[in-house]
């Protein structure tokens, strides 16, 4: 072997590689950025969660009579003691009558026999009335754990207690540890006191006897084990399957020049995108399905042999269902980015970082103690990973499912819109380059908003609103102003300017005359009463009602009522109407009237981010859309929106009315109010309908 030849070949290969900027990026820059980002980010994230749990006051439900001094001990150790919380009257009396003997000590599992016995005791506790009662309260986070204090028997002086906690919940597990420590401390004090004050009798040396029981049923514990790693594995493996198809169908087709053959066939770019997107999505979903089936069979088999892991087919089916939107997102993203590559190798270099960046955050489920919150429900891929985990442990809430699915769908639409845009760029498809401005169409003179552009704008602003609305610890007044003007109005104006759309025509800035304005007044004053009746179909939880009230009252900050109205009524009327009935609805002008109104209302409903408010808010959105459609102006809708919100705020803020509602324990407004509202609403709609000659839908600013 001639070393000089080897050296020449080696140097040529290195030179060529080092001149490839993408390879350099993948080889050096990505690892340099990725690992610090991941490790430092994840560590900080975990530290902040640990700190939060450590600093947090644990909510402890105390069932039974606490011996003197115990409450002080618990409070000193940062427990918020809630006597009798979640305990039914029946159980309280049975507990007082000592109908429930203390739990037995679970033996050390040092042999198969004792292991079996321990498992049986744990399973038996699962159906115990106290455990069954504690379970939902811990699951819905109203408490972290329960301390049961059994009635004291005079003969031995032992205080028997039980701790009911949830191993799946990190904060419940932590609270249990802290409670153990607190009880030990209390026990030591108790012993010392007894020893000094009285003579010792049998049993006094024991102080407190505590038995702990896990309220999490077997399925939930199995789900927790699976939910830690499974979501990430599922997402990553499924995405990998789509990855190679995406590279082949974009960069591969360019490399083989089959893309240009396709482009000279009588097909539209959107048809090419749709076909390729459907193929990549199908392959990804098949991979996901195969993974889930294989996992299900494996765990089913293991479960039969050694027990401990059992998930129902419906849980697996749900997991598959929530993978659909994230599959659509990654497929569209891969498709769009793949087109930028010159050849197959280039495609792999480009798509690998995209896959890493989208998939790695899904490893969040492996971090102990991370609980789903609004931030997480909005984060692409992460939200689906957390939802899969929640489904596996059986604690997925309707709002979590709704927000995760809606935000994932919004990301998927954005990615797909991007892919469609990329496939319209012939320079990219034929192997050339494109500019950022050209790619996004900035600077192109447009005459109108298309439905797809409207939808993409909606998704972009929705993502902004969602992320903006979870900004932490912001003054509520500033927060409302920030959302309305910073996240809704500003992007609306920016989109109109960036795409060089005619502002007056696009945003329907046209004086409609007095009749539509009166229609807006009537609809605004009555629409809420009718919309509110729809809440009966899917009653919101108490927590949502409290959160809404907090926003409406501006967290009881002492500010003038006029300012409250400005923040809660006038600003939403102005900003949201310019966005929804101005920019977005202008994209629906060529659709049939009711399709456009329904689409406008639905998008308005979705943007409010709660499945419980979806129906009423959609109805209100449709009413405002109808006003805008009939009047060809955004102003009647603005007035209606502001009046609608103003009425809501006035009801909550007007003390006698609020007190009346509270005193009557009204969950919903009476149907008679809704009926009265319906009458006024019909008058408003008739006014909005206008005369026949006014019903031309074409826009004329004059």
């Amino acid at each position, binding site marked *: 072997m001639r070393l000089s030849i080897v050296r020449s070949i080696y140097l040529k290969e290195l030179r060529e590689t080092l001149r490839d900027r993408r390879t350099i990026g993948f080889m050096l820059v990505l690892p340099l950025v990725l690992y610090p980002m991941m490790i430092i980010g994840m560590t900080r994230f975990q530290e902040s969660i640990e700190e939060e749990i450590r600093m947090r006051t644990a909510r402890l439900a105390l069932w039974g009579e606490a011996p003197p001094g115990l409450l002080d001990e618990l409070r000193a150790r940062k427990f918020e003691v809630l006597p009798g919380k979640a305990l039914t009257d029946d159980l309280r009396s049975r507990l007082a009558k000592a109908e429930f003997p203390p739990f037995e000590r679970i033996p050390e599992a040092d042999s198969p026999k004792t292991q079996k016995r321990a498992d049986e005791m744990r399973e038996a506790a699962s159906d115990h009335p106290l455990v069954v009662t504690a379970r939902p309260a811990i699951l819905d986070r109203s408490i972290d754990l329960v301390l049961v204090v059994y009635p004291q028997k005079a003969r031995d002086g032992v205080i028997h207690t039980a701790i009911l906690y949830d191993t799946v919940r990190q904060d419940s597990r932590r609270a249990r540890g802290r409670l153990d420590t607190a009880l030990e401390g209390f026990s030591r004090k108790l012993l010392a006191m007894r020893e000094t004050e009285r003579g010792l009798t049998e049993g006094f040396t024991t102080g407190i006897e505590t038995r702990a029981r896990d309220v999490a049923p077997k399925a939930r514990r199995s789900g927790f084990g699976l939910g830690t790693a499974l979501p990430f594995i599922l997402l990553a493996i499924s995405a990998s399957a789509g990855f190679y198809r995406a590279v082949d169908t974009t960069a591969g087709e360019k490399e*083989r020049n089959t893309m240009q053959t396709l482009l000279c066939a009588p097909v539209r770019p959107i048809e090419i995108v749709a076909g390729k997107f459907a193929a990549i999505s199908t392959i990804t979903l098949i991979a996901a399905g195969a993974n889930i089936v294989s996992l299900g069979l494996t765990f089913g088999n293991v479960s039969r042999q050694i027990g401990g892991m059992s998930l129902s087919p419906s849980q697996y089916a749900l997991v598959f269902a929530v993978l659909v939107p994230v599959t659509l997102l990654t497929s569209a993203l891969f498709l769009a980015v793949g087109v930028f590559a010159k050849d197959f190798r280039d495609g792999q270099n480009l798509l690998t970082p995209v896959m890493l960046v989208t998939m790695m955050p899904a490893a969040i489920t492996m971090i102990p103690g991370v609980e789903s919150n609004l931030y997480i429900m909005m984060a692409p891929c992460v939200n689906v990973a957390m939802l899969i985990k929640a489904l596996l442990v059986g604690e997925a809430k309707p709002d979590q499912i709704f927000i995760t699915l809606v935000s994932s769908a919004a990301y998927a639409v954005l990615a797909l819109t991007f892919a469609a845009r990329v496939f319209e760029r*012939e320079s990219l498809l034929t192997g050339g380059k494109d500019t950022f401005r050209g790619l996004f169409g900035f600077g192109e003179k447009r005459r109108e908003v298309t439905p797809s552009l409207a939808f993409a704008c909606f998704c972009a602003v929705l993502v902004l609103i969602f992320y903006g609305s979870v900004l932490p610890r912001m003054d509520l007044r500033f927060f409302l102003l920030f959302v309305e003007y910073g996240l809704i109005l500003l992007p609306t104006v920016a989109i109109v300017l960036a795409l060089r759309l005619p502002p007056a025509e696009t945003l329907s800035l046209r004086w409609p005359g007095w009749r539509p304005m009166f229609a807006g007044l009537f609809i605004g004053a009555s629409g809420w009463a009718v919309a509110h009746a729809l809440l009966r179909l899917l009653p919101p939880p108490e927590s949502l009602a409290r959160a809404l009230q907090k926003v409406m009252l501006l967290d009881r900050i002492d500010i003038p009522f006029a300012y409250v109205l400005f923040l809660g009524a006038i600003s939403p009327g102005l900003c949201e109407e310019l966005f929804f009935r101005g920019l977005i609805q202008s994209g629906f002008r060529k659709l049939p009237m009711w399709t456009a109104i329904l689409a406008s209302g639905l998008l308005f409903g979705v943007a409010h981010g709660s499945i419980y408010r979806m129906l009423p808010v959609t109805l209100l959105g449709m009413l405002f859309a109808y006003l805008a459609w009939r009047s060809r102006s955004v102003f009647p809708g603005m007035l209606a929106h502001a009046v609608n919100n103003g009425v809501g705020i006035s009801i909550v803020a007007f003390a006698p009315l609020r007190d009346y509602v509270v005193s009557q324990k009204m969950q919903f407004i009476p149907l008679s109010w809704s009926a009265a509202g319906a009458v006024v609403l019909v008058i408003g709609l008739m006014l909005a309908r206008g005369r026949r000659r006014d019903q031309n839908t074409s826009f004329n600013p004059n």
Partner: protein
Amino acid sequence: MNAAPLLVCEGLKKYFGPVRAVDGISFEVRAGEIVGLLGPNGAGKTTVLRMLSGILTPDEGRVWAAGFDMQAESLEAKRNIGFLSGDTQLYQRLTPREVLHYFGELFEVPASERRRRANELIAELEMRDFADRRCETLSSGQKQRANIARAFFHDPRILILDEPTTSLDIISGRFIVDSIREQRDRGKAILVSTHIMGEAEYLCDRIVMIHLGHKTEEGAQSEIITRSGASNLTDAFLRAIGE
């Protein structure tokens, strides 16, 4: 040549950033005629052909294919064009027959017609031995025959062929060239770009020469040779590009 022009371009211009790749080119191709597009490397031939087949949009100028405006009625215009380039490969994991059916679907050829047409072309282009083998196993010549069949499949009135015999041996090249002549005899309007002067002389009724994005010559071979004062097409070409 009194047949109607089927492919017409007028004032075509195309810029790639500051580079003026094509600068005001106009010509037409009539039914039953083969027009050769000649030019040195980088002259803009491929860009012109891509604009004519609807792959690229001209920055200025217009294209009509079978009377349809390529920009305003692109689907109808494309339906009348068969495009082939020498460097186009096939879908590796499909068979030539599957490729033909796929493009038949894209060109909305009825299903029964697709079967008949595939059998007809497979026989005509002598593809029986490999029509049902995966394209990844075919030789260059076999692949190009399959590609030709793909371009002819929807029976377009216009054929645009970008160096169709590149990288083929002399036997395969001649087979392709003869197939093109046969299409001309069936009344197709054919535009072909080539580097091979002998092929142009054998194949083309008229020649359009371009250089640096401009048209430098157009006419029948004999007219161009006479006008340039050269003795053959190669010399006439070299003179036209100033060599």
